[in-house]
């Protein structure tokens, strides 16, 4: 494997020297930003319209994506979920587009590198505790102490281990699934390039959506655990 593997990033001179997961994440982010700006402009243009457009245009498509995302979040977290739509929606779109980019030849998905997935999961980890402190103040630390104060020396390490396991499992799962899927597709492509990788690529499509949904679901569960007023 001495020859250079073609990637779209190698077409840009300033992205050439970066490692592939960084350059691909940058390209995907740029695509997402362009979609967001175009969608925002279209929505702004018909902000005052009362009757919605009948046919599917770019603007309505973006509106549909945002609405379904916020519906999922509010359904799972209750009315307070609106505060988290921005953070979880951003992560979900970034991960989804990165996962799907693995199916396009010439893209190495950024999520098949541990650094990217742990960046995402550590963001969730830090933000859960930020929201926890914002909601409860210093009393948030009481959540770590368990039901009775004399159980604290026992409960604190247990809780700490449990909390460290969360971002690790989030990042590891996403990384493992996307790497495995990408590798299997590549191996099948190397064996028989015609038609045989098709079912595997279909499976890859499924995995991309499911893993995004799992990431969303778990981060929502962690957020609602941090802001809940029980125990």
């Amino acid at each position: 494997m001495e020859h250079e593997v073609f990637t779209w990033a190698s077409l840009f001179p300033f992205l050439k020297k970066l490692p592939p997961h960084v350059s691909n994440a940058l390209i995907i982010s740029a695509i997402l930003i362009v979609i967001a700006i175009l969608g925002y402009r279209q929505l702004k243009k018909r902000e005052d319209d009362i009757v919605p457009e009948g046919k599917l245009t770019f603007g309505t498509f973006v509106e549909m994506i945002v609405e379904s995302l916020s519906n999922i979040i509010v359904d799972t977290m209750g009315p307070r979920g609106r505060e988290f739509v921005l953070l979880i929606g951003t992560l979900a779109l970034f991960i989804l587009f990165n996962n799907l980019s693995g199916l396009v030849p010439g893209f190495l998905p950024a999520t098949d590198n541990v650094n990217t997935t742990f960046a995402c999961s550590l963001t969730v980890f830090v933000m859960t505790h930020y929201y926890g402190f914002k909601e409860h103040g210093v009393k948030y630390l009481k959540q770590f102490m368990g039901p009775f104060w004399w159980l604290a020396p026992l409960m604190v390490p247990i809780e700490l281990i449990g909390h460290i396991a969360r971002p690790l499992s989030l990042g590891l799962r996403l990384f493992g699934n996307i790497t495995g899927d990408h590798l299997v597709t590549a191996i099948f492509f190397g064996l028989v390039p015609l038609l045989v990788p098709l079912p595997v690529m279909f499976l890859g499509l499924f995995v991309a959506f499911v893993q995004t949904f799992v990431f969303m679901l778990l981060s929502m569960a962690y957020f609602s655990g941090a802001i809940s007023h029980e125990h």
Partner: protein
Amino acid sequence: MLEKDGNLMDMTLQESKKDVVKSLLSYSSLGLEMGLSVAIGIAIGYFLDIFFKTSPYLTIIFMIFGVAAAMKTIIVLLKKVQKDNERDKHQ
């Protein structure tokens, strides 16, 4: 619900299907989290052992903490399921 409420039944069926998928996905994370809890416990104990030169006591103690953390994950999930069931009954 009788046949005349077919539409309503369809809707509740769809809702419950959605819930099943959701809970399946969130329970599927349980295994990985349990395993990682034990691994993290052992890792913390191991490095503390090296630091304090008390091998192997802290490794064993923190392994037990890790197992307890794994069990706590299940207990928390069970409580959540119970609460969801009760809420569904009231509706």
